[in-house]
């Protein structure tokens, strides 16, 4: 039989080799296309089957894991008795259940613990952490951190951070400057959350940028993490070569109203990058830095429009009243619509007797178009 088959194949090959080249190629590609289609169908069905199996497994395991957490942590009889968390012990029999030895189950357990820890603080949160450590899940996370796959490292960082497990600087600091932006952001977030003494140490060594999305993430972490030491961010404004760090620090300076940083921010007004300068002007406005007004007004005419608009906004925020005439002139004589709008808003924002008188005077003397701008800016239904 095998000989017959071999002969048949040989004959087929002989016939095939007699065909023109493009027909040979077409036949090969038909075979490839049919196989690829079948594999694709198989993959679609396999993926769906796998997902269904996983869901069933999850449905089976979840009650077991939930029971473990409820019994060992939530209903732990030692809670609320002023017993130090380190001295609370779990039922070792429950923890050594064979089912918790499987890597997939341990991962589900970690994910569940993290979900719980996000919802529980205080003693319960600490006891969840202890369960994570006692079940040696911390080693699972560190093993992930040591892999080469960046996405696995990120998962480990998230787990360790959520469980408040310290990671050594030698392991974490290099990752904060990784060329992979996602890994870099995750490790920087982890560093801020885990480093109790110098959470911003990586600012000194960071050469890679903090992307705007990462800034948002980091901003939330900084402003919501308890017991974090907030430094004077002006040190990076003055000395960092990394523009994104300086921009981020400007935002933090404004948020924490660090008035002592004003001199450092003022120095940035001389920088060549106009986007950078605009950020500095915005920061000064948010700090209500009256000291900066003269400088801002004196450099105004040489600035591009984005910096001019930030200057007008800043003058409106500071609202000292010293430059109302300047704002009035900008409103009346500028050819740029956005400049006019922002000048009008800045005058309105002063909300003083002089500014109100000035607005009345403008409304009586100026043309209809300008009057419309003022009415637009005064209308409480229109926010901007």
């Amino acid at each position, binding site marked *: 039989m095998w000989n017959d088959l071999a002969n048949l194949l040989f004959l087929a090959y002989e016939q095939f080799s007699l065909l*023109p080249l*493009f*027909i040979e190629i*077409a*036949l090969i*590609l*038909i075979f490839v*296309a*049919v196989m*690829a*289609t079948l594999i*694709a*169908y198989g*993959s*679609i*069905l396999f*993926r*769906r089957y796998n*997902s269904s199996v996983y869901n069933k497994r999850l449905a089976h395991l979840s009650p077991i894991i939930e029971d473990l957490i409820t019994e060992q942590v939530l209903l732990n009889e030692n809670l609320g008795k002023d017993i130090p968390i380190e001295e609370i012990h779990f039922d070792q029999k429950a923890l050594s259940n064979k089912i918790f030895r499987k890597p997939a189950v341990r991962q589900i357990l970690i994910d569940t613990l993290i979900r719980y820890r996000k919802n529980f603080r205080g003693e319960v949160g600490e006891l969840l952490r202890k369960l994570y450590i006692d079940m040696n899940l911390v080693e699972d996370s560190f093993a992930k951190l040591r892999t080469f796959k*960046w*996405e696995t490292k*990120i*998962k480990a960082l*998230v787990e360790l951070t959520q469980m408040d497990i310290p990671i050594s600087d030698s392991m974490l600091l290099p990752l904060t400057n990784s060329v992979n*932006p*996602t890994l870099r952001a*995750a490790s920087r977030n982890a560093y801020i959350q885990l480093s109790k003494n110098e959470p911003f140490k990586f600012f000194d060594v*960071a*050469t*890679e*940028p903090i*992307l*705007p*999305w990462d*800034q*948002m*993430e980091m*901003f*939330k972490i900084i402003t919501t993490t308890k017991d974090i030491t907030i430094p004077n961010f002006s040190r990076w404004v003055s000395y960092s*070569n*990394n*523009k*994104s760090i300086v921009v981020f620090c400007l*935002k933090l300076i404004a*948020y924490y109203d660090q008035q002592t940083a004003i001199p450092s921010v003022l120095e940035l007004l001389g920088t060549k990058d106009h986007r950078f300068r605009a950020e500095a002007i915005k920061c000064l406005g948010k700090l209500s830095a009256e000291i900066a007004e003269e400088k801002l007004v004196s450099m105004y005419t040489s600035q591009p429009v984005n910096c001019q608009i930030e200057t007008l906004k800043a003058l409106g925020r500071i609202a000292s009243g010293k430059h109302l005439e300047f704002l009035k002139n900008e409103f009346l004589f500028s050819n740029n*619509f956005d400049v006019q*709008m922002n000048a009008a808003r800045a005058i309105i924002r002063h909300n003083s007797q002089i500014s109100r008188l000035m607005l009345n005077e403008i409304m009586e003397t100026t043309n209809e*178009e300008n009057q*419309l*701008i003022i*009415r*637009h*800016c005064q*209308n409480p*239904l*229109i*926010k*901007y």
Partner: protein
Amino acid sequence: MKVIIDFFSRGTFWDVLGIFFQYAVFLYGTSLLIAYGVLAFLSLGSIRRYMKKNANADYNIIIESPLAPGISVIAPAFNEGVTIISNVRSLLTFNYPKFEVIIINDGSTDDTLEKLVSEFELVQVDYAYREKLLSKPVKRIFKSTNPAYDKLVVIDKINGKSKADASNAGINVAIYDYFLCTDVDCILDKDTLIKLIKPFMDAETSTVREVNGDMQIQEDYKRVIACGATLRMVNSCDVDEGLMIRVRPPRRILPRFQEMEYIRAFVLGKMGWDRINSVPNVSGGLGMFDKDIAIKAGGYDSLSLAEDMDLITRMGAFMTDNNKKYSVKYVPITLCWTEGPTTLKVFGRQRTRWGRGLAQLMSTHRKILFSPRYGRMGLIVFPYHFFYELLAPIIEFLGILFYIYLILTQQINWPYAIILIVFVYTYSVMITTIALLWDQITFKYYKTWGETIGLCLMAFLEPFIYHPLIVFFALKGYFNFIIGKKHTWGNMQRQGFSQPKRRTAVKAG
């Protein structure tokens, strides 16, 4: 060489032309199939990268963040009185901290505006409107007196006979740095703004590098100018008050083919282009744009029939002309569901317009084609669209004519011809099935495997039913473009989203 010269000297003119045509078509077809194959590989890389990158992303942080950039949602409406209220309510419920919804009543002749005014407690406001982009005159602007609707702005303008004109008016009023363009009757995911703004905020900026012993700042800023996401058909899906409840492939055959076509075009095509930073366009149904660049590029062209691709082309050309690096991004997840035409008449009108729009676009921006000055746009995107989008229906049609000629003159080698047809057929089925597999990798939109496989099986029918229609309407569009036939915007009978299908609205394309 001698063989070729001998051959050409022996044959008649028609023989030579026939042979030349056969070889040219063979080369063309082979290169097209290779291009699809390459796109399939590129898209897989792009999808995997997106999934890995965003696996641990916490999108909720943006909801509370004071650093979130503002977004203006722009949705033109023409005679949408039947569904306008639920659609606007849906747009007002995005998960995002800083956005406004701008509805442009584009001279509706029904009660669209009256319904908006009454439902959302709108009053006319003194609005300092400045026309940065050309559009038909704006008559009035409304804001709500109810603080619950403070994000809503309604523009009442004279009908401009195009979505582009209305969108331009919306951009003129938009206050934020980014705008999202959509159709008011589309169903959008609640996280659309979060998912689409992320690529803008992930753009690399400057890096500090050591150069000759000094730490120097290296600017490597590639500005993201637009971002899009996958669209699907809303036909047969369950929708409740503008919220997607259950996704299903359309039951009717025409939208079902379109669903398959959209998945292939977005998940395989756009994501493949995304991998090499050559995304040709962002769909008119859903796209987020950098407002500054869009305005500088001149906004939408109200005379263009492919206004979405035209805008991206001009934005890209503007960036190149000003020596600025840019990118257009795509996300592989479905964020928008739109109603596909269910009748051949409406479908034909839509595809004829698309065909004509493509011809118009290529003609308008012909200076970009093969121009090294425009980088990837000039050397990849435009040549691809010229050869494989614009010329494909023409070559296909000529090929069919040639085939008929060969059959009639009994010159055809049937066994070889059948092998080649089977080859093209199996390859086409393979590419579509792979696209559907990639789609499954991103998210399992369909609840049952039957729905998934059911859609996959459409790939077997496509070459016989759907594809000839596409070719025919594209050729009709080219013909209309060549003879300069006046374009009229037709009505699309809306079926409504949720069952039972009881709502009917009229919309001008």
